[in-house]
């Protein structure tokens, strides 16, 4: 119940924001019959109407995970986010060892397995994609 109402509220805010953003699209020099903002307006309308429906007739509450699991997902999210940021600095191999080991550990492996899987995955993928297939993965200070 509550979750759907929140979704509806967020959706409604998004629809209003979207419609507003459509109104500030700069006027083009030559326009067609509906212009660059006509279709987005229709989309904002559909978004808004369906959001109102969620508020009025919400589905039963989904089963949210317990707080510690939510934190787990949040941490994984942060780690992935961090991975994207440090990739160009640390290079592919080091960053990947860290994130793979972290994910393996959090998915239920022991620390040693996690570390081994981190190193194995990272080196394995590096050999496969950079050395064999010739993709250019992110380079670190040591060149890999």
């Amino acid at each position: 119940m509550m979750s759907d109402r929140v979704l509806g509220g967020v959706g409604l805010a998004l629809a209003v924001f979207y419609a507003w953003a459509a109104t500030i699209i700069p006027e083009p020099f030559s326009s067609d019959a509906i212009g660059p903002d006509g279709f987005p307006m229709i989309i904002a309308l559909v978004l808004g109407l369906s959001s109102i429906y969620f508020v009025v007739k919400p589905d039963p509450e989904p089963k949210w995970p317990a707080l510690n699991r939510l934190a787990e997902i949040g941490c994984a999210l942060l780690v992935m986010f961090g991975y994207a940021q440090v990739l160009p600095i640390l290079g592919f191999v080091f960053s990947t060892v860290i994130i793979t080991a972290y994910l393996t550990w959090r998915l239920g492996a022991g620390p040693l397995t996690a570390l081994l899987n981190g190193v194995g995955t990272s080196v394995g993928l590096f050999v496969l994609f950079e050395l064999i297939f010739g993709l250019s993965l992110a380079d670190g200070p040591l060149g890999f």
Partner: protein
Amino acid sequence: METFASLYEGFAVALTWQNLLLALLGCFLGTMMGALPGLGPANGVAILIPLAFTFGLSAIAALILLTSVYYGAMYGGRISSILLNIPGDEPAMMTCLDGYPMAQAGRAGEALALSGVASFVGAFFATWGLVFLAPLLVQIALLFGPGEYFVLYTLAFATLGGIAATNQAKSAFAAALGIGIAMIGVDTQTGVQRFTFGEVHLYDGIDFLIAIVGLFALSEVFVFLEHRGQNDSADEGKMKIGRVTPSLSVLRYCTPAMIRSTVLGFISGVLPGAGASLGSFLAYSVEKQVSDPRSETFGKGDPRGVAAPEAGNNAASGGALVPMLALGVPGSGTTAVLLAVLLTLNIQPGPLLFQNNPDVVWGLIAALFIGNFMLLALNIPMVGIFTRVLLVPTHILMPVVAMIAFIGIYSITGSTFELTMMVLFGALGWVLRKLDVPLVPIILGILLGNEMEVNLRRAMTISNGEWTTLFDSWLAIILWTIAIVGFVLPIFLGKRVKRKMKEAEEEGPLSD
């Protein structure tokens, strides 16, 4: 006979060493991904698209590789259904019902072999259906003007939730979200910036691959983190496989079931909003009605109950290619991902594809035929390899999948901004899955949003801003009717169909 000539040309394209090798690789990877729970065909194809693209494969080669993965995944889904009672992907759900009891009775090898043959029959004849039906549909599609195309896209979104959709508002919400994302970037008609707020990275729009890989593959990692430790009690695949050859008598016994299911599956694949899951569900329930009206053997390890859903789901996956190739409008999640493949390769599917790039279409179809035979070979004598894949624990596997997703997106964009965006899409995907908002309309919206708008604006320009142009041809009215019926019908029927599917599941061994 033109069709056969085209098909012959197609084989000439597909039968090069490189393409054969790619087909084999695709079939192998596909079967493996299908077999692994949590990595369905859509995921499997999605994480491979950026890689196929950066390897610089030609359009036809990349297409052969990825459709082989698609077909392979449809074959592979059954393996874990039979051995572990966990469907490898959604369409393989019905295969659990009789496949697992057969395995428990020590007939796992037989069930695997039989379902392999059934998959082959379904996919093989569906590919023939594709050969004959797609050109016919192209003839109709050539009559479409921009107005009709706009309605056709609307139809695709309206029916995407399928007959089993329980909340159409959520489908509409998802579609609007996807189309809304597609609008970001330069407006192709007038050249003005839309929704970019001065962010340089957004000028070209959001690459649909980032959204697909994030929403599908990364959100799966979050789902696994959420459920860690809850599903670990699977029987570790210690099931005795036994003989992996189907006996002729069992095959003969199951032939009528396979034929019926192939036809049903193909039809539900072609129709909008049905797809492989419904194909296998329909095939199983009809077969049960026909062969076992008093429920004496079905659900207890009847081989026909294994053959029917497998033929059905593979026929449906072939059928789903018909609207995707002929109209450019996919009817299911996986074909939406295949559409993404085509768009990445700068190929716009639809009637013009058949006229301008017949080599691509027919080469692809020929590759499907070849792939089918490869899959039959891979799936009967070598099924043991794939059963061993199931023993790889999730905590080893999922990180590798996530890393391949990161590599793929990094290799096409080379930027931190896009990787960050992919992670955000992953989180969004997880939240939306929790809230029961379907992800496929989002993907389809991102893929088709711009085409949809372009066609609407073209139609409007032709008619000088008269909105009635969207209703002034018979074709348009028929399409509107289907769209409205397809959208409204599930509101009344959706709950019932869903309940039936649930009941079928619970009657089966899934409940224990």
